[in-house]
C-alpha cells in the first residue's frame, strides 16, 4: 500500500505533464491509497483533483511545493483546516511579493504553515539554515526521497544518512510530474518551452528518463525500503482535511445593527415591489416573491443578494446605468431589488433556472455597467471590503489549437513558415476530424515528424498556461479571502486574483458576482444626458415610452445600424422577415439569430409560422404551454428544459443536467445518454417518434449557443431603448455612440453615414467650435417650423491627440473662439498642431489644410518676447477633393465630404453599376453590377460554405454572398480587394436584398492610397 505525497499536475505551469484527473485516475489504477497534488506555490489544480477523487473515491491530500534554491525544495501538506488556512496565507504572501506568475519565499516564511507536514527534498550540499530549520521542526519534517535512476546510489544513501543525523524519517516518493511514461515527450516539450529552446538543443535541461511518474508498487518496493513506503501511508492518515470542509461565508456588513439578514432583505424587497407595482402587487407576483424568499432563506443566500443590491445601489446613486442579465432575470426578487429590469410577469421565466434546491448551486448574478464607468464600481468594492476580502476570480488561460500548434512547432524546431502554411490549410470549422487528423493530413510538416508532432499538439491542447483575471467576477468574503484560497497579483496594477476560476468556485459552492461592462449602457446614458442638456430637464430610462409603434416600424425596415444586439448583417436581414411589433418579438429576435437556432433548423419553421405560411400544431397541451409563445418552435434553453420535464418526465435535476450536457456535448458526447431517455420518455407518454427525434435534433443544434430566455429578455430591453432613441433622437443617439467608442459593430464613419441618411446634419471638427467629445448643436433655421440638432464632431476623433492637453486649452478658448494661432501654439506641441492641421480642424484660423500644415510646421518659439518673426509668404493651393477625402480618412477615420464612391461614380469603369439604393428597383433573379468599398468580410461558423462581403457606397451598404466555389476560383480578389466590383444575381425577399456573386473584380487601384480598414470576421 502506498500514498504518493508529491505529485505535480499541469497546474505547475509548463512543468507538469498530466492533468489532475489523469494523476488521480492513474493513482487509483495503481491501487494507491491516497494522492497529494502539490503544485508549485499554487492550489489552482486542487479543485479539479478533488472532483476527480470524488468520482474515483480516492483520498486527496492538499499541498504545495516551494523551491528555495540552495535550501532545496519543501512540500507542505495540509493536515487540518487550520493548516489549510496557513498554507493559503503562505502562498498568498509568496505570490503577492512578486509580479504576476512568480513567487518569492524565504526559509523563515515556512514557519507560517507550522501545522502543515513538511517534506524536504534536500540538495547535495544543504545549507546550514536549512539544517537548522529541520532540526527546529523535527516533529513535522520528513526527508523526501526520489529514486529516478539518474543519480548514483550514494546520492540516496547520503540523504538517508543526513536524515538519520537530523533525526527525521525518510519518505518514498515518485516525485511524479506525469501519470504515465508516454507523457515523457510532452514533458520534454514543456521543458523546452519553459527554457525558450528546442528539444534538440535543450540537451541536459531535459530529464534523462521518464521515471518521475506514478509507479507500480512492485517497482517502488525495489527502489525503497519498506519503512519508507509505509511512512507515506502513515503521513497520509495524518492529513484529514477535505475541501468540502471549506465554509464560505458571505459578508454581513450590510445588515443594519439589530436586524436580521432575512428580515432586512424582505424589507428591501417589499419597498422595491411597491415601486415596481405602484398600483398593486399582482397576486402571482406576491406568490412568486414568497416562494423565492423562502428558498433564499433556506439556501442561506440572503447576504449574497444584499451585497449585489448594495453594489447596484451605489451605481444608481452615481447615475451609472446598470442592469442584471442572465439567469438572474428569472427572479422577481432581483426585479424588486432593482438588480434586473425584466418584469418576470411580462415574460415566461423560470426561477429554477436561477436557483433550485436540486441543483444546490450558488446563484450567479451578472450585472452590466456602463463600460466607461465600471472602474468606479470596482474601486467601490475594493474600498468597501478591502483587498483582503475582495478579489477577482481567475481565468485559466489554456492552450488552444493554434497556440499549441505554434508552441510545439517551436519546441521541435519546425520552421515558422511551415506552421503558417499548416494553419492556412486547416479548416477549423470542420468538426468531423480531430486536430490530430488535420495535422497528419497536411503536407506542410515533414513526414518524419508529422505524427509525433500531431500527437504532442493534441496532448497540449487544454493544458493550462497561466492564470489571468476574470472579466469581472468578484469573490467577496466575510473574513480574509486568503483563508479560503490563495490570492496572487494579476497583470493589471492594483489587481489581485484568487487561484480558482469560476468552475472551481461553482464546484465548491462559492459565490461570485460578475461586474461586467456594456458599451450600450454608456451610450444610452450619454444620450439621455444630451437630451437633458438640450431640453433643460432630466430624462431617465423610465421616461422612454414603451411599445412605440414608430420604433417597431423602423425595425421592420431593417433600419437598425447602431442599435444594441440587432445591428449585424444577419440581424438586419432577419428584421424585415420577423417584423417585430412588441417587446417579446424583440426577445425572440435577439435569441433566434444565433448559431444554435440556425443549426437546429428552428429559424425557418418559426418564420413560416409567423408569416402564417405553415400551421402551428402541438402534440399535447403540456407542450403547447411551453412552446405556444414561440409558435411551437423551441428557441430558448428554458423551453428545452421544460419540455423534457413535461413531455418526457425528467425531474428538475435531470432537466438541468440535460441543459449542461447541451452546452458541452460536442466535447464530451454526453448528450447520447439523454437522447435515449428523452425519446423513451416521450414515446411512453404517447408522443410520435418523429416529433421526439425532431425535438432532439433541435436540442443538438443548440449546442453551446442557445440563449436563455431571461438573458434575451434583459437584452431586449436595451434593444428597445436604443431603437427608440435612434428613431426619435437620431442626432443625440449618434452623438452618444460616437462618444462611447469603442463599441458596437460599426465604425464612427458608418454610424455618421447612417445618421446623415436620417437627416442629421454633421458639422466638422473645428478648433473654434468643437469640444473634446462630439456635441449637439441646436438650430432653428429661418423658416423652419421646429428646432433640430446637428452633431458637431469632437476633437477626440482626430488621431494622435491627448485629452488632457486639450481640456486645458479648451477651457481657455474665448467665447467667440480663437482669433489666431498663438494661444494654440503655447498650449500644444508641434505634433498635436500638425494633427489638427491635417484634420482640417484649423480651417477657421489658418485656411485650407495645406496652408495650415505649412504654418504649423514652421512654428518656432520667439527668441525675444514680443518679437515678430517675418516669414516669406507662401501660398499653397487647397487640396483636391480626392486628396481631402483621403486626408480626412487618414486623420479622423471618416469624411463628411462626398463618399469615395460618389467621386468615382463618374469613372468610365463604373458605368452601369448600380448603387445600393438603386437595387431596390431591381427584380428578383435579375443580373446586376454593383461596386463599393469592402468594409466587411465574414465567414460565420454556421455557414461554412459562404463568405458574406459588405460593400459600402454613397447610398448605403450592399450585401454580397460569395459561395465557396466562387471564392476558391477568385480567391485573390476576394481577399485583396479594397474596391470590389461584382457581377451577380439579385436576390430579393421583400426588403431584404442580396447579390449572389458571380464575377469579382478588384479595382482598388482606383482608390490609390485610400486606407480604409476592412473588418474581417471568421
Amino acid at each position, binding site marked *: 500500500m502506498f500514498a504518493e505525497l508529491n505529485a505535480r499536475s499541469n497546474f505547475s505551469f509548463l512543468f507538469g505533464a498530466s492533468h489532475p484527473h489523469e494523476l488521480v485516475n492513474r493513482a487509483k489504477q495503481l491501487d494507491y491509497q491516497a494522492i497529494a497534488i502539490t503544485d508549485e506555490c499554487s492550489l489552482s489544480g486542487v479543485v479539479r483533483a478533488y472532483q476527480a477523487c470524488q468520482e474515483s473515491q480516492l483520498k486527496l491530500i492538499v499541498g504545495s511545493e516551494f523551491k528555495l534554491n540552495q535550501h532545496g525544495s519543501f512540500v507542505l501538506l495540509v493536515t487540518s483546516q487550520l493548516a489549510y488556512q496557513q498554507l493559503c496565507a503562505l502562498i498568498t504572501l509568496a505570490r503577492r511579493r512578486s509580479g504576476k506568475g512568480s513567487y518569492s519565499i524565504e526559509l523563515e516564511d515556512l514557519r507560517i504553515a507550522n501545522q502543515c507536514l513538511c517534506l524536504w527534498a534536500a540538495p547535495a550540499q544543504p545549507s546550514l539554515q536549512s539544517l537548522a530549520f529541520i532540526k527546529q521542526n523535527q516533529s513535522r519534517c520528513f526527508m523526501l526521497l526520489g529514486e529516478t535512476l539518474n543519480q548514483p546510489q550514494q546520492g540516496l544513501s547520503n540523504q538517508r544518512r543526513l536524515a538519520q543525523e537530523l533525526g527525521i524519517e525518510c519518505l518514498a516518493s515518485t516525485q511524479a510530474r506525469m501519470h504515465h511514461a508516454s507523457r515523457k515527450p510532452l514533458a520534454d516539450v514543456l521543458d523546452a518551452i519553459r527554457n525558450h529552446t528546442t528539444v*534538440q538543443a535543450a540537451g*541536459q535541461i531535459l530529464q534523462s528518463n521518464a521515471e518521475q511518474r506514478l509507479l507500480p508498487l512492485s517497482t517502488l518496493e525495489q527502489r525503497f525500503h519498506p519503512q519508507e513506503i509505509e511512512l507515506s501511508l502513515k503521513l497520509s492518515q495524518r492529513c484529514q482535511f477535505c475541501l468540502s470542509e471549506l465554509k464560505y461565508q458571505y459578508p454581513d456588513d450590510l445588515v443594519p445593527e439589530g436586524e436580521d439578514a432575512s428580515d432586512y432583505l424582505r424589507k428591501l424587497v417589499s419597498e422595491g415591489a411597491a415601486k415596481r407595482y405602484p398600483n398593486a402587487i399582482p397576486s402571482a407576483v406576491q406568490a412568486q416573491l414568497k416562494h423565492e424568499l423562502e428558498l433564499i432563506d433556506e439556501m442561506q443566500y440572503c447576504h449574497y443578494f444584499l451585497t449585489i443590491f448594495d453594489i447596484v445601489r451605489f451605481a444608481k446613486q452615481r447615475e451609472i446605468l446598470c442592469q442584471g442579465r442572465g439567469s438572474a432575470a428569472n427572479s422577481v426578487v432581483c426585479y424588486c431589488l432593482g438588480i434586473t429590469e425584466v418584469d418576470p410577469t411580462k415574460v415566461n421565466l423560470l426561477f429554477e433556472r436561477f436557483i433550485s434546491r436540486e441543483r444546490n448551486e450558488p446563484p450567479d448574478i451578472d450585472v452590466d455597467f456602463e463600460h466607461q464607468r465600471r472602474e468606479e464600481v470596482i474601486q467601490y468594492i475594493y474600498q468597501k471590503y478591502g483587498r483582503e476580502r475582495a478579489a477577482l476570480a481567475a481565468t485559466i488561460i489554456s492552450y488552444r489549437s493554434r497556440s499549441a500548434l505554434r508552441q510545439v512547432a517551436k519546441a521541435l524546431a519546425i520552421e515558422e513558415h511551415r506552421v503558417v502554411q499548416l494553419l492556412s490549410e486547416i479548416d477549423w470549422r470542420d468538426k468531423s476530424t480531430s486536430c490530430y487528423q488535420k495535422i497528419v493530413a497536411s503536407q506542410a510538416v515533414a513526414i518524419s515528424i508529422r505524427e509525433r508532432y500531431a500527437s504532442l499538439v493534441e496532448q497540449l491542447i487544454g493544458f493550462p498556461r497561466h492564470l489571468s483575471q476574470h472579466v469581472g467576477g468578484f469573490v467577496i468574503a466575510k473574513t480574509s479571502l486568503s483563508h479560503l484560497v490563495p490570492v496572487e497579483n494579476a497583470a493589471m496594477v492594483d489587481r489581485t486574483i484568487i487561484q480558482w476560476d469560476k468552475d472551481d468556485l461553482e464546484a465548491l459552492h462559492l459565490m461570485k458576482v460578475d461586474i461586467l461592462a456594456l458599451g450600450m449602457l454608456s451610450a444610452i446614458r450619454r444620450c439621455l444626458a444630451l437630451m437633458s442638456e438640450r431640453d433643460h430637464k432630466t430624462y431617465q430610462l423610465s421616461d422612454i415610452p414603451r411599445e412605440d409603434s414608430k420604433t417597431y416600424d423602423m425595425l421592420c425596415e431593417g433600419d437598425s445600424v447602431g442599435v444594441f444586439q440587432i445591428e449585424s448583417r444577419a440581424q438586419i436581414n432577419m428584421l424585415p422577415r420577423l417584423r417585430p411589433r412588441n417587446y417579446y418579438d424583440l426577445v425572440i429576435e435577439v435569441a433566434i439569430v444565433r448559431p444554435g437556432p440556425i443549426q437546429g433548423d428552428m429559424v425557418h419553421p418559426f418564420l413560416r409560422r409567423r408569416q402564417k405560411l405553415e400551421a402551428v400544431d402541438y402534440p399535447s397541451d403540456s407542450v403547447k404551454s411551453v412552446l405556444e409563445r414561440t409558435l411551437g418552435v423551441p428557441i430558448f434553453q428554458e423551453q428545452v428544459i421544460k419540455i423534457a420535464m413535461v413531455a418526457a418526465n425528467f425531474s428538475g435535476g435531470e432537466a438541468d443536467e440535460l441543459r449542461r450536457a447541451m452546452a458541452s456535448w460536442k466535447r464530451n458526447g454526453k448528450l447520447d445518454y439523454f437522447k435515449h431517455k428523452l425519446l423513451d420518455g416521450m414515446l411512453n407518454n404517447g408522443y410520435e417518434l418523429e416529433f421526439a427525434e425532431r425535438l432532439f435534433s433541435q436540442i443538438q443544434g443548440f449546442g453551446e449557443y442557445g440563449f436563455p430566455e431571461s438573458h434575451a429578455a434583459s437584452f431586449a430591453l436595451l434593444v428597445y431603448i436604443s431603437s427608440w432613441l435612434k428613431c426619435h433622437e437620431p442626432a443625440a443617439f449618434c452623438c452618444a455612440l460616437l462618444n462611447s467608442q469603442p463599441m458596437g459593430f460599426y465604425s464612427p464613419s458608418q454610424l455618421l453615414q447612417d445618421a446623415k441618411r436620417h437627416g442629421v446634419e454633421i458639422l466638422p471638427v473645428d478648433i473654434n467650435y468643437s469640444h473634446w467629445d462630439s456635441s449637439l448643436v441646436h438650430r432653428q433655421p429661418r423658416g423652419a417650423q421646429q428646432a433640430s440638432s446637428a452633431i458637431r464632431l469632437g476633437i477626440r476623433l482626430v488621431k494622435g491627440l491627448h485629452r488632457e492637453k486639450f481640456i486645458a486649452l479648451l477651457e481657455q478658448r474665448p467665447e467667440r473662439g480663437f482669433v489666431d494661432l498663438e494661444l494654440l501654439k503655447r498650449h500644444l506641441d508641434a505634433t498635436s498642431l500638425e494633427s489638427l492641421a491635417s484634420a482640417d480642424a484649423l480651417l477657421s484660423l489658418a485656411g485650407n489644410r495645406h496652408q495650415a500644415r505649412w504654418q504649423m510646421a514652421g512654428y518656432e518659439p520667439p527668441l525675444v518676447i514680443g518679437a515678430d518673426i517675418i516669414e516669406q509668404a507662401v501660398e499653397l493651393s487647397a487640396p483636391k477633393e480626392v486628396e481631402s477625402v483621403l486626408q480626412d480618412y487618414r486623420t479622423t477615420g471618416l469624411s463628411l465630404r462626398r463618399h469615395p464612391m460618389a467621386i468615382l461614380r463618374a469613372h468610365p469603369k463604373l458605368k452601369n453599376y448600380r448603387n445600393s439604393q438603386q437595387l431596390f428597383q431591381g427584380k428578383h433573379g435579375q443580373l446586376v453590377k454593383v461596386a463599393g468599398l469592402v468594409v466587411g468580410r465574414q465567414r460565420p461558423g454556421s455557414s461554412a460554405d459562404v463568405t458574406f462581403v459588405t460593400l459600402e457606397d454613397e447610398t448605403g451598404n450592399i450585401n454580397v454572398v460569395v459561395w465557396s466555389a466562387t471564392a476558391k476560383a477568385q480567391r*485573390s480578389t476576394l481577399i*485583396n480587394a479594397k474596391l470590389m466590383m461584382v457581377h451577380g444575381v439579385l436576390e430579393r425577399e421583400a426588403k431584404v436584398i442580396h447579390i449572389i456573386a458571380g464575377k469579382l473584380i478588384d479595382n482598388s487601384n482606383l482608390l490609390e492610397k485610400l486606407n480604409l480598414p476592412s473588418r474581417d470576421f471568421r
Partner: protein
Amino acid sequence: MSWLYLYLCQPDLAARCQQLDPAVAYAVHHDQQVLQFNQNAQNNGLKNNMKLATAFHLQPNLQLFEQDKQLRLEHQFNLAQQLLDFSPQVAQDQEQGFFVNLEGMQNIYQDVQAQQQSLFDFCAGQGFDFCLAIDKTPLAARWQARQHAQVNQQQQAKKPLSHRQLHLVNCDLEPSHINKLAAMGIYNLEQYQQLPRPELRKRLSQSALTYMQQVLGQLSTPMLFVETKQQFIRKFELLHEISYSQGLCFPLNQAFEQLQQWLIQSQLQCSHLRIELNAREHGAQHIDLRSAQAQQASQSWHTLLRLKLDNFRLNQAVIRFQVEALDLIPVGQQSQDLFGTKHNSPDLDLLDRLQNRLGPDAVLQLGLNSDHRPERSGVLQAYGQSLTSAPLPQFRRPLWLLPQVKALNIHHYRLLSEVERIVCAWWDTPSVQRDYYLAQHRQHHGLAWIFQELRSPGRWFLHGWFS
C-alpha cells in the same frame, strides 16, 4: 557628367534567381511577411508585406525562402566586381543597387547610349528584375530608376523624367519629411523647388536640404567606389612532364616565391593554397595546403608541401599546374588570444605539420556535448573550432567509449553498480532506451560499461571500458 543607376527591384530574389525555376511561385519572407516574390506569385495575388498566412491562402504551393542577408551581400559583391568591366567607377548603394559613372569610357563605347545598352544586355542575362536610368547626378539617377520601376515597370528608362514627374515618395528623404511635404500639397520635385529655402529649413532638417541639393547637382555626392578584388591565381607550364610527386617540389617552389612577392606587394597573407595539377589527358588532381596561421614566406609553404608530398601519388604525369591563394587577409590581422600568442608559435607549427601530413580531418580535439546519449555526449571537433562545453554527468563515464556497441553475454559479467536509466531523444535517430551498469568481466576482471536494451529485454551490450 552622366550617371547611371542600376536598381535591383528584388535584391533577395536576385541573389537566388539563377537556381530557381520561374514556373514555380516563390517568395522571400521575413518576420511573417512576404517581402519579394516572382511573377508567378504576383499573378496569384501576392502583394508586398502581405502576411504569410494570406499568401498561403492565395498560393498553397508557394515556395518560401527566409531572407538571407549574407547571401545577398555576396551576390552584390560579385555583381559589383562584374560591373567594373563597364566602368572604373562603380559604387554599391547599400543593398538596393549600384551607381555607375558613365564618363571616361569613350575609348571603349562610342556613346553613353551604347554603354547603357551593354549594361542592359548584361543585366538582362543575369535573370533578375532591374531598372536602369540615367541623370546628371547619382542621386537623381537613382530617383529616376526607382520611379520608373514603380510607375512604368520598364527595365530601361529611355528618357529621364521631368522634375514634375519625379514624385517625392520615390526619393530618399525620410518618410516623415515626405509625409510632411505631402500634407502641404508638395508631391514632386518641381513643387519643392518653388519653395523658399529658409522656410524649408525650418520645416525640414538640414540633411533633407543637403540631400536635395545633391540631387540637383548643387552639391557633390561623396561616393565609396568598389575596388577590384585581389586574387592570386597563376598557371605554370612545365618544360617537361613530371611523373613523380617529389619532382614537383622545384617548380612549385618557384611559384611560392612569386606568391611571396605578390603577397608582400599587396600587404596580404594567406592561410590556404590550392594547387591544381593538370595532366595531358582529362582530369586534374588537387593539393590543398593549409596553415594554422596566415603566411607570406615561401619557405613555410615549401615545408608544408614536402610533408604533403610524402603521402601524395600522382595518377598521371603532370604538364602544368595552377596555384591559387585563398583565405587572404591583410597583414597584421592575425587573431591573437588573450595572452598575445605569437604568430609563429611552435604549437601552431606542429599543428600545421600534422594537418598537412595526415590530413586536416586527422587532427581533432575533444569537446563535451550537452546530451544524455553517451555516443553524443562527447564530440570530436576539428582543431580550431571553439570547444563546446556541458556539465559533466553525475555518473561515471568510461574513458574509452566504443564507436559501436557490441552484443555480449551477460553471464560473463558481474554487475557492480546501481542502474542508470537513459530514455531520451525520441525526436532523433538514434533514440535511446537503456539501463546502464558498471560491470566486471569474470575472467579478466576488466571494468566495463554495459547496458540492457529496454526495447528488447534480455539483450545486453558493451559500450565502453573503464579499465
